[in-house]
């Protein structure tokens, strides 16, 4: 499902349509790692966990594509740059794995790839959305500034 917030560009961001619909299947997480050529979960830039027991539903953590991203401001080596439409783009070659960005994100949407010791940050491609059978996730179109 696509919600058009602004009409003038095609920039996208991943959004949560309704976390109450989440069944906790984690297919979005598997999709995210698969996109990068991996099976499993540690390359995934989003996370689904129960709100304290399955009966209470699930918390779905995705990058909100901040216009003024705290993670970017926290990076000491300019490995993160602003992405058109919000959020950041990571330059792996500059990243020193200091985890400042991970700590700076208030909602915990900077994940960590332990095998590479680098952050995993959503690029808002929307690949995961096509594997969400319950319309928890969606893509929103954004304005460019």
């Amino acid at each position, binding site marked *: 499902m696509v919600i058009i917030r602004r009409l003038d560009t095609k920039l996208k961001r991943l959004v949560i349509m309704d976390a109450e619909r989440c069944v906790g299947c984690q297919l979005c997480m598997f999709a995210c790692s*698969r996109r990068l050529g991996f099976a499993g979960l540690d390359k995934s830039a989003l996370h689904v966990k129960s709100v304290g027991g399955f009966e209470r*539903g699930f918390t779905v953590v995705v990058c909100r594509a901040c216009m003024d991203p705290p993670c970017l401001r926290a990076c000491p080596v300019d490995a993160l740059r602003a992405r058109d439409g919000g959020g950041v783009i990571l330059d792996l070659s500059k990243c020193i794995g200091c985890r400042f960005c991970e700590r700076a994100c208030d909602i915990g949407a900077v994940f960590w790839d332990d*095998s590479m010791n680098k952050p995993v940050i959503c690029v808002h491609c929307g690949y995961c959305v096509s594997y969400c059978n319950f319309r928890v996730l969606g893509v929103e179109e954004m304005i460019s500034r």
Partner: protein
Amino acid sequence: MNQNNVLYVDLERKSFYVKNRSDLFNKWLGGVGVALQLYKEEAVKGSDPLGPGNVIVFAVGPLTALYPLASKVVAVFKSPLTGNYGESHAGGRSATAIRSAGYGAIVIKGVSDRPIYLVISEKGVQFKDAATLWGMRSTFTAGRVLREASPGTGVRTIMRIGRAGENLVRYACVVSETYRHFGRMGLGAVFGSKKLKALVIHGKSSMRVPKIKAYRDVYDEIYDLAVKSGSMKKYHELGTAMNILPINALGALPTRNLSEARFEGAENISGENLAAKKLGRRVACSHCPVACIHLATIREPYPDEPYFYKTTFVSYDHELLYSLGSMLGISDINGLLKLMDEVEIGGLDAISTGVALAWATEAYKKGLIKLNDLVVDLDWGKADAYREAVKLIVDQPNEFYKALAMGVDHSSKIYGGRDFALSFGGNEMPGYHTGPAAHIGYLIGSRHSHLDAAGYSIDQKMKGLSPEEMVDKLIEEEQWRQVLSSLVICYFARGIYEPSIVKKALDVLGYEFDEERLKELGRCTYREKQALKASEGFRPSELRIPERIFEVPSFHGLIDKNYMKAALDHYSKIFNKIVATE
């Protein structure tokens, strides 16, 4: 995410090691095939199921964490209920967690000197004190404590037992993620005997898939079949609870200890009615887009405080609605859900519990048991009384409940009522009185479960089979299911994971298994199981058929004794031939 790594844990010495067992995984793929071999290597032959010689093996398979619906873990152990081969499957987050922690299988040996729980990750095993958790009334509370005390939120499984397991009820279960279970055959009691309260397993590793495009294509094919083809519709919408009405209409829904096979309250306890009135949430196992887990809500006022309520979530499906519903004559939904909740709190297998209580009720009505022993006045439909009885099974305050906690086969040997003690090979019957294939299936299935070969399905689809043809069909199905449970696929997805799809799924991962080799693997695993059962004392000639199934018409009418005998004779020949050659 190396599938070939096996984690060996010794509870007595509180030690562990990891060993690469590609020898086993190359030959047996994973899941039940590998678990069986590990069990044979590690268990002491002829040992007491509740003694130090028993081992528990958990195994996942080559498709775990790689494809949708490969969402189950197989547990292999010696069953304290049947005294022979025990096997149970569960989902939740357990399969993904084990594979993502870097293991293909986990072997748990020995007995701890004090209550403990284990935290397992890629780094190995932490042995944690469980003295405070031991004796806690509810599996929910134990789960909550472990959730807050342990790492890995979202990528972990928390398997725990309740007081039923601690008190060695022979059909105690292991609860995982609150609503999934290693339900049948008493794994909970084996945990209890080892003083093992819980396992927390967490991990989030990944693996690079070499043929990534081909892998994505096969993945999408399976995903589309799961969400678009309609083959999973039943599980997706009403869940297995949708079976209640059709099975009842066939005259195949065991009611009041199978004194009847149609339940006048079926409408009330149907999946349709529950969905309309009680369904509060649906949840899924990890990597399953179907979400068959249906949670009902009960909203109850507190009697001592006005405008003060609690809301409880209770997981239901066909087997619970049968065993704790129709089998006990309970049609009041709230009463039924509260009974299910009590079974969950104590950590019991719902099927065995319901069948045990149904037998007890009939035995009481026939004067075989005294009210003094029974403590509560059990009667069909009285959910509150049954709820009290569940607590008594867990606590076992007297000789009667000590016996009932051993199962109906054992209880009926002491108190009588053998003819209506509905156990097959020592395991209490599931919710299908469809005809001869269902019952022969319970008798000859490796774990005496309806899931071994789905005889209920053969009964519904085919009429006029000879006893020999029917047994051959059951065995053929059970053999293919060995492949599914080596991969390890959820049986609900058996319609998707046809041999051609399985071959494709394995192919892109580099496994060379054509369809014939897969089927041969199924046949070999089946033979291995029969041989193992024989070595532990199983004899087909000693199988007992409860007289009751001949007294109540099934979907196939009254079941013919000669037909059943011919079927068992045919199976005996096959079994004996396997045992002679293996």
